[in-house]
């Protein structure tokens, strides 16, 4: 398909802009002006609409295809949430920061405050900041809160390490490293959880935090989590909960109850806000009361009259991790989702997510290796090692699925599983959809034995076949040349 720039014709326009009702100003000095207008596309409105409509048709999406991308929680995104977010489009964020401006924004400030309260109840935390803009941004914010906590206790130079299991999301060690820590990685034991004995050996008084995902990226709940928390706390290390998999345990376990001190929540996963082709996400961070003094600002507080105010400057705060109040539009959707589903609905979300993952796990177990064969939570991780004996890799199975109209599961993650195939169906999929998917996965396993070349050749039905990724990395053509 042509690029929009290849459809460009000088002089065309896609929109009529307002006319001027003021005199033209004297021009700026030439030294401040660009030599020629920027080389943007020039297309008519219809050309523009057709271009992007046709581009959209080259995507798989939740609304068009089953999308069991493990760890990413590609559940259905309710349409009413989009309508709700649009209600707030015209409100400028600086309005709340003007003198007396809080009174003009009681709706939004109150909603953010309430959302924080709902998330605190769901996670067992004492307060939540909505400022972080994505999951990884929440991780970084959370680890900066950990730093501030240790610094306030005079331990800034003593606390040098963050401990992560080797099954963790790559963002965990990356976020901790960005925040200035060295990383200690603890291997996974054969039973699928972080090796408890090796963890104990890794723990010293120089550890600032332990970052865990629970259930972990194998979809397994760690029954020793409270013991792990107690060991961490005995070294004055804080427990960080990566909330990527919170969707499995709502109403069943609260991370705050089992020893976690800091948590981020991916609203775009657990709370059904759309992923947008890569974003916007939203990563609110919850903390226990010891960490409240360090939360970023602006912090919303409820006064004795029930009005919502922005707290005056607080010197202990880590400052600011984003411009304003976070990805507000995403929070509107998450808030509407939570109040719409309510207590029973959220419990049901976790239960059916877990039911669906276990159903797929049991049905596919005869056909694919399951390195950690236990009851899973919201996702299950297979290995294509049996197929590899026929020269078929996880990526080949992925491409076969694309030809059959399924977005592939996450592959090659977690890295501790060879040829990993990580399937997360989510609660919104019907049994019929899963049964069809299971049949296609079985067909892929059978084809791996009977005709591996067919899998190597896939996909055949897409606008393009497999791409040369080495060429892309070598040539680095990241924008259209003139």
């Amino acid at each position, binding site marked *: 398909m042509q690029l929009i720039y290849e459809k460009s014709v000088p002089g065309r326009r896609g*929109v009529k802009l307002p006319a001027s009702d003021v005199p033209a100003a004297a021009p700026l000095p030439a030294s401040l002006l660009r030599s020629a207008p920027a080389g943007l596309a020039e297309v008519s409105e219809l050309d523009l609409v057709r271009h992007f409509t046709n581009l959209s048709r080259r995507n798989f999406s939740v609304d068009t295809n089953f999308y069991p991308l493990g760890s990413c929680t590609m559940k259905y995104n309710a349409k009413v949430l989009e309508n709700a977010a649009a209600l707030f489009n015209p409100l400028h964020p*600086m309005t709340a920061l003007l003198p007396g401006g809080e009174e003009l924004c009681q709706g939004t400030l109150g909603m953010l405050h309430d959302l924080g309260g709902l998330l605190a109840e769901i996670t067992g935390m004492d307060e939540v900041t909505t400022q972080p803009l994505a999951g990884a941004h929440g991780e970084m914010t959370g680890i900066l809160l950990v730093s501030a906590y240790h610094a306030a206790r005079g331990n800034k130079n003593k606390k040098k390490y963050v401990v992560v299991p080797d099954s963790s999301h790559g963002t965990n060690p990356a976020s901790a490293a960005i925040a200035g820590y060295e990383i200690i990685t603890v291997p996974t034991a054969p039973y699928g959880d972080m090796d408890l004995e090796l963890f104990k050996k890794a723990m010293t008084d120089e550890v600032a935090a332990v970052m865990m995902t629970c259930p972990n990226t194998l979809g397994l709940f760690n029954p020793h989590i409270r013991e792990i928390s107690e060991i961490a706390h005995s070294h004055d290390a804080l427990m960080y909960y990566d909330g990527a998999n919170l969707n499995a345990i709502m109403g069943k376990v609260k991370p705050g109850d089992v020893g976690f001190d800091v948590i981020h929540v991916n609203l775009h996963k657990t709370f059904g806000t759309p992923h947008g082709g890569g*974003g916007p996400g939203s990563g609110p961070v919850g903390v226990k009361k010891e960490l409240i003094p360090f939360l970023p600002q602006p912090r919303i507080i409820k006064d004795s009259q029930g009005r919502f105010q922005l707290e005056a400057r607080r010197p202990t705060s880590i400052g600011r991790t984003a411009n304003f109040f976070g990805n*507000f539009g995403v929070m509107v959707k998450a808030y*509407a989702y939570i109040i719409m589903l309510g207590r029973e609905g959220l419990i049901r979300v976790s239960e059916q997510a877990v039911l669906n993952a276990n159903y797929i796990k049991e049905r596919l177990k005869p056909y694919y290796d399951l390195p950690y064969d236990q009851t899973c939570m919201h996702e299950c991780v297979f290995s294509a090692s049996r197929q590899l004996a026929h020269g078929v890799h996880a990526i080949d199975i992925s491409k076969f699925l694309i030809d059959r109209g399924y977005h592939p599961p996450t592959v090659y993650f977690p890295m501790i599983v060879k040829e990993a195939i990580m399937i997360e169906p989510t609660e919104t999929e019907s049994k019929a959809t899963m049964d069809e998917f299971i049949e296609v996965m079985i067909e892929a396993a059978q084809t791996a034995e009977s005709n591996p070349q067919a899998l190597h050749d896939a996909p055949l039905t897409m606008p393009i076949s497999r791409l040369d990724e080495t060429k892309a990395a070598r040539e680095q053509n990241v924008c259209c040349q003139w």
Partner: protein
Amino acid sequence: MNDSHYCPHTPEEIGEMLSAIGVATVEELFSPIPAALRAQTFNLPSGLSEFETFSRMQAIAGDNVQGLTSFIGGGFYDHVIPSVIDHLSGRAEFYTAYTPYQPECSQGTLQALFEYQTAICRLTGLDVSNASLYDGGTACAESAMMALRVTGRNRIIVDGCVNPFSRQILKTYLFNLDVEVVEIAPLDGMLNRAELANVLDDSVAAVLVQNPNFFGSVDDYTALAGQVHTVGALLIASVYPVSLGILKSPGEMGVDIAVGDGQSLGNPLSFGGPSFGFITAKKAYIRNMPGRIVGETVDKSGKRGFVLTLQAREQHIKRHKATSNICSNQGLCALRGLIFLSSVGRQGLADMALLNRDKAEYAKARLAAIPGVTVLQSAPTFNEFTLFLSKPAEAVVAGMLKEGIAAGVPLGDYYENLGQALVVTVTEKRSKKEIDHFAQLLEAALCN
């Protein structure tokens, strides 16, 4: 209530699935969680219907101010949003997809991001762009960290005329690292070049400036780029993309990394987010760039296609040695930015920028003629300028808010000794009539 519209199984289907798994109840599936760890309470309200939910959200929105005439900017701007943007970015194939890990079934997102990267490169006059960052403020911090990686040095100089929120974010990001952030106090709403020269040496990784700056002043950093390069440092410019319709681009000035917030490009104000940040640089620095990057390549038959590239920098491969911790972008907001730029087009963006400046120049002259009002800067401005009032700006703004006008951003919270300063923003959406009304109210406020 029955939530079967989002959790579709019938009791019969649940029964069939449980028997396939070999358990009697759904609860049994949670048996790996020891009883001692189970939640004792879950105090949430009962669910609502879709209609009740939307009504509740309408009530919340109704608790906010309605119909304010806004002259506030400060990083977020009230610009026109062509109708096509909502319709096209509202295509579910875009907004219910995820990061394009599987390129064959994600060419829509990938090609759009390649086109986005192209638009940002052309707008800024630089060579390479990523697929977007979270917002403009975090993009400033990311660009500084990128300069630390490129140079191996540990000092950052920041012009005090850079948006105060961006400066705060930078300090928060860096507070646990062994990095010194040096701020240059503004001089008449401009970079104090003499002061900068005093602290610029070969320990400096980067100098961060903004154009137009937080006061609205427009500057040319061409000579500055030369000075910064002489000591082996990088020049980073935070820019307002709409202004680049007419203003000299960072590339033309010799800037090494340009960043900014994309909200003004087709994204609603939405109480501050989501928007997107952009980051663009000279090609030599591409491997130190954070975030996703889309690259062009070919498929097995030689047909053009697009993929996520240079992923070896990223955390899902490199873990703690990754270039950054960012594993997403603001894809949908960046798509809106691309559609906006493609809708207004080459000449349209220039026209829009000129219209912004014309309106702001009219307002500036009109307001500066009021007794008790002077313009803070002698430098030229784009669509924002700073007034110095004969009374505290906070009180003036508070009074005018009661009349339905948000007069601007008072600077007292952000700069010492500028309690009487007010940054006023005038976009193409403000009419002459609204500007005149603003002037009348300001005059009345200052005369009382």
